[in-house]
């Protein structure tokens, strides 16, 4: 289907199902239940899942295929956000021109930075991208204030021209972002028994774009271009002595992944029209590195999983507090309950980053292929066990477990 083989098609379908049914999947708990606070099916949260998914998919095209570790990708996301907000200020509130512009601007910016940074490889490349990102961040905070509005961040005002729209709505407020009239914030709520599911226009736009981005990344992975990028990672020397110029290949990968980041930034601004410099900081670049590697760098589905995993548990963990823990462990004797809560306490709530850091280290140390490799190992282990069982109990019918 769509020019993909069976395996890739099924990956695409899985991701499509996850994305399109997210309002159900992420809202497993009835609204009144005590666990309702662990639902994640809220529009803004779901938007973040898929937007960071796009960011990570793009990052993976660079890092996963070529092995070039960039610590500056947040700069492209930031640039995308700024461009989109400017589009909302100058042109109008339709998200399409804003998204298009953010992708183009981020692509151009990536072309510039990539052209310079890719003259070096390895650690030097990482540090160059780091330096560029930090430079952009510092500039956005200081001299570029007329464009970025400095520390406050770029916001919409009632005075913005919006030549294809209105500066202010009839009731005197700032207009909202829309897709040809469909407001991004509009949400349809569906109540099914005790459950309430929210279907948000903005989320579905992001999800569809993410699917397109994912589909595109599959195509790139399976194309001759993708193969060349893997060859770059494997042996640059052989590339050069096979008549292939590695520079344009890596630069193209860098620009494409920069455009993905810009797309993510543009979508972020389309959902919530403001942009701040902190989105460009190098630690923000670090986050996409975490997502990609946690999920599985170089695999197709890994970055999507990683982004979803991190954003989901960030939400869940930050909501767990001691009270919640006490109810969970109330079956234990009192002293033990307190002890367990005491031990877990540093890792929850605001301690989520600690958990994330440890998890990330464990993945880098023991599971370089990330969650995807973990899944494969479990699958391999299960199938080995199964075949063993099958060997022992030959002739018996396997009960469907």
């Amino acid at each position, binding site marked *: 289907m769509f020019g993909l083989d069976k395996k890739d098609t099924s990956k695409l379908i899985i991701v499509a199902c996850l994305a399109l049914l997210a309002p159900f999947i992420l809202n497993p708990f009835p609204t009144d239940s005590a666990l309702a606070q662990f639902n994640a099916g809220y529009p803004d949260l779901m938007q973040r899942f898929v937007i960071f998914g796009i960011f990570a998919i793009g990052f993976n095209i660079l890092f996963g295929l070529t*092995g070039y*570790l960039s610590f500056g990708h947040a700069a492209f996301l930031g640039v995308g956000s700024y461009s989109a907000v400017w589009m909302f200020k100058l042109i109008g509130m339709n998200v399409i021109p804003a998204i298009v512009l953010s992708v183009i601007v981020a692509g151009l910016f990536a072309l510039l930075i990539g052209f*310079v940074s890719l*003259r*070096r*490889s*390895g*650690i*030097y490349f*990482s*540090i*160059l991208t*780091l*330096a*560029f990102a*930090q*430079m952009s961040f*510092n*500039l956005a*905070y*200081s*001299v*570029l204030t007329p464009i970025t509005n400095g520390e406050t961040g770029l916001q919409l005002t009632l005075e913005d021209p919006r030549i294809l729209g209105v500066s202010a709505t009839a009731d005197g407020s700032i207009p909202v972002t829309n897709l040809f009239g469909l407001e991004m914030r509009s949400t349809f709520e569906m109540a099914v028994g005790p459950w309430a599911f929210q279907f948000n226009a903005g989320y579905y736009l992001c999800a569809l774009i993410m699917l397109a981005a994912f589909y595109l990344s599959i195509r790139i992975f399976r194309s001759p271009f993708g193969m060349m990028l893997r060859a770059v990672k494997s042996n*640059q020397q052989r590339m050069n002595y096979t008549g292939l110029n590695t520079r344009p290949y890596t630069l193209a990968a860098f620009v494409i992944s920069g455009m993905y980041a810009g797309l993510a930034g543009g979508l972020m601004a389309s959902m919530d029209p403001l942009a701040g410099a902190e989105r460009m900081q*190098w*630690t923000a670049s*670090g986050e996409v*590195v975490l997502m990609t*590697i946690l999920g599985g760098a170089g695999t197709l589905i890994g970055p999507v999983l990683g982004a979803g995993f991190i954003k989901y548990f960030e939400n869940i963990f930050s909501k767990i507090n001691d009270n919640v823990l006490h109810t969970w462990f109330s079956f234990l004797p009192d002293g033990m309950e307190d002890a367990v809560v005491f031990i877990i306490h*540093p890792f929850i709530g*605001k*301690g989520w*980053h*600690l958990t*994330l*850091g*440890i998890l*990330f*280290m464990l993945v*880098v*140390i023991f599971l*370089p292929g990330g969650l995807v490799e973990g899944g494969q190992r479990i699958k391999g282990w299960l199938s080995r066990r199964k075949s063993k069982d099958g060997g022992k109990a030959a002739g018996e019918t396997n009960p469907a477990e």
Partner: protein
Amino acid sequence: MDAILLQILNGLDKGSAYALIALGLTLIFGTLGVVNFAHGALFMIGAFCAVTLQRILNLSFELVDETQKDFLGNPLKVKTPYVEAWFGPDIGGSIIDWAVPLAILFAIPIMIGVGYVMERGLIKHFYKRPHADQILVTFGLAIVLQEVVKYFYGANPIQTPAPDALNGVVNLGAAIGMDIVYPVWRVVYFFFAVLIIGGIFSFLQFTTFGMVVRAGMADRETVGLLGINIDRRFTIMFGIAAAVAGLAGVMYTPINSPNYHMGMDFLVLSFVVVVVGGMGSLPGAVLAGFLLGVLESFASMNEVKSLLPGIDQIIIYVVAIIILLTRPRGLMGRKGVMEE
């Protein structure tokens, strides 16, 4: 003229922090060949050693003092630090006052210990892995360390003043008939940095241990073939590098109140310094540290800023990028170190 001298001072002062961190980073890179993204975290841990000592010294008991009354007429509860109770208010008071310099003694064993555990427990397993993996795992470690510190000390900066005697300003230009007023502690910091740098260099230059380490930095295999256990020495060097970063952190606390993310803030800069100086070159790291410090403070002069707005924010990165592109081995790096 005064202004220029002042900027040079400012630069040397900033540069001494850069140089110290970069020195440790280079020691680790040069000896173990590991790119340590957790080095900033070591700097941060050092700073929090000072905070911890200050808190320990300020541990107090409460006494109800019947002679003093608060405004409601109740007897006043007076807090007395144990230190003052044991050594008397004068000596005890000055011990507390000198918490930051004293923290040097406190921090050295702790930092060496932290470095040792880090190397044996984690870094050791990454010698043979690609540099990208080293970056990633130490980046993860940096996150963990800073979150642990945040858990215990909170997210807000903690004031850690210098001793009263070193808290004022001094006119450094008096002797040559000029007016250069400068904070005393920053002068102390500069000389402290020079002392540490000098110490490390003479240690490497004049002791057998240092000689072996230098030989190992140049050619690890040969030294290993001579039957010298280079790994053990490298482990110790990691501890020393951690201690250098930690001491830089301890002494930095009066200049900037420490917070949990100060390590990450310094990390990027110190990597830039290392790269400019030349990966694996100790003199390069020191030179680049001071050089970039001075450049940065000149760039922040109003005259320069009005000419090139924003230059102070980016000068270091611009220099780093130019150097990386034109002379990838940095100012003093050996040819071939990490050039693919």
